């Protein structure tokens, strides 16, 4: 039995780094959006640079992904699951990029200064001031965050399904380095 090739080290580092960042971000976001303190300001101040870091990493990762094909899915995986895998990954990439942009855009439309670090380094607005757009994007930010969280849960469940139920090489392709011969 030839072991299936793993994701490259670059792909794995990006995956696990972003996994930690995105999960932290979702928890920080949900907590702060319902909170009025005492950690509120600190969390909001962390949320912005972390979101921008995720945006930059997601764009790098998308570029890398388009140039480096991932290991193929097992041949015996039913077509419907292959389709689900492909579709959910496209959606994950879309949300990783869309959520920070919606966050940046909503603060722009709300007329908020957008401090990236401390209160001296500001991001420029990416949308003109428009309170209705701010309100709409603020709601969209919540809906998209919940969608991303749901998708992350499905993603984790699917990875464990591969690892524990099907016991194929899919989970290991992201956890271990395997020699491809």
């Amino acid at each position, binding site marked *: 039995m030839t072991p299936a090739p793993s994701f490259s080290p670059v792909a794995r580092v990006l995956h696990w780094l972003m996994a930690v960042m995105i*999960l932290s971000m*979702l*928890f920080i976001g*949900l*907590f*702060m*959006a*319902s*909170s*009025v*303190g*005492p*950690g*509120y*300001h600190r969390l*909001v101040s962390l949320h912005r640079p972390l979101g921008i870091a995720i945006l930059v990493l997601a764009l790098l990762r998308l570029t890398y992904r388009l140039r480096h094909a991932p290991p193929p899915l097992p041949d015996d995986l039913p077509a419907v699951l292959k389709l689900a895998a492909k579709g959910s990954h496209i959606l994950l990439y879309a949300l990783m990029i869309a959520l920070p942009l919606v966050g940046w855009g909503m603060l722009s439309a*709300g*007329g*908020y*200064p957008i*401090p990236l670090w*401390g*209160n*001296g380094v*500001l991001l420029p607005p990416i949308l003109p*001031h*428009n*309170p*209705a757009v*701010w*309100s*709409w994007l*603020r*709601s969209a930010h919540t809906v998209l965050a919940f969608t991303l*969280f749901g998708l*992350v*849960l*499905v993603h*984790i*469940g699917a990875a*464990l*399904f591969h690892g*524990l*139920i099907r*016991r194929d090489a899919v989970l290991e392709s992201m956890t271990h380095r395997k020699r491809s011969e």
Partner: protein
Amino acid sequence: MVAKSTGPSRSALRWLGVAAAPAALAFGFFWAGGWFSPNRVTQNRLMAELHDAGSYGHGFRRAHAKGVCVTGRFDASGAAASVSKAAIFREQSVPVVGRFALGAGQPYVADNPATVRSMALRFMPKDAPEWRAAMNDPPVLPLRDAQDVSDFFSSQRLDPATGKPDPARIRAFGATHPWLKAAAEKNAHRVVSSGFADDTYHSLDSFLLVAENGTKTAVRWAMVPMQPVAPADAATAGRDHLFQRLIADLHDHPLQWRMVLTVAGPHDAVNDPSQSWAQDDRTIEAGTLTLDTVESEDGGPCTGFTFDPLILPPGIIPSDDPILQLRSGAYMRSFALRSGEKRGPSAITPAMTQAPAAESEKKS
């Protein structure tokens, strides 16, 4: 290699393994959102309490709903530049957009001198990040933390039978919050001025100023009127008389305030806006605010913004006063709600803020 298990219990365990991690994360996520802590004071809970206390909503601010926009400038004296590196404390003619309002949540409420009055400002230096400040006229805030605020809002809930807050609930709030008694009494005994122009507006919360060398100084500040102060007169005519007087004043002459910083002394509570500070604290005259134009909120420059007191420039940072964070979060929520709603006309219409051309022609 591990032998493939065939027993149904092993299989069930594996499926449990598949479900456990996502379930644990989902649990944590809902915990973070407050689903399992019904007593936590959240942004939505404060909005609901304001609604139950008669806040009008429908596109208006959840509190301080009736207001007008003003513009002008701030000229620093330079005296505060040694304690804060903020551009505002050394520059001249910093553009200012502001808003005067009544503290109530009803945009069509009749003016009453006893209602809390507020001044909110955006200082917008050309070459530095802006600073937003929202101030009220009572000298202290009779609320110490998020729980106090929530308890207070709940105590103001309108009784459906009378359409007014239940006096018993208000008394109960006082009785169960004895630590706020001194602040409430201080505010009750304040001198109520005749209008917006001769009023003093207080930062309420404390902030830390950061000097060029990193030294931090805890301060509160007040905008002290340069107009002569007259006490409110009992005979008050018209639903909008406070605003009409402000508009008339601004069309007649610019209004000015001195920005006075009060430096915390060794015994002053920086983290509790309900505590008064010592009378002999050092003060710094930071500069002069001059306001010279007034506009209705309908189309005015102050409407589509929130005066979040944590929008701060380099040189000013939040203190550990918990009310600051509460205001920041609650203002954001109120701003998001009202910006998505259809808004009716403001009580103070564009026609009312026009220069009284007809009258001045008659006079001349």
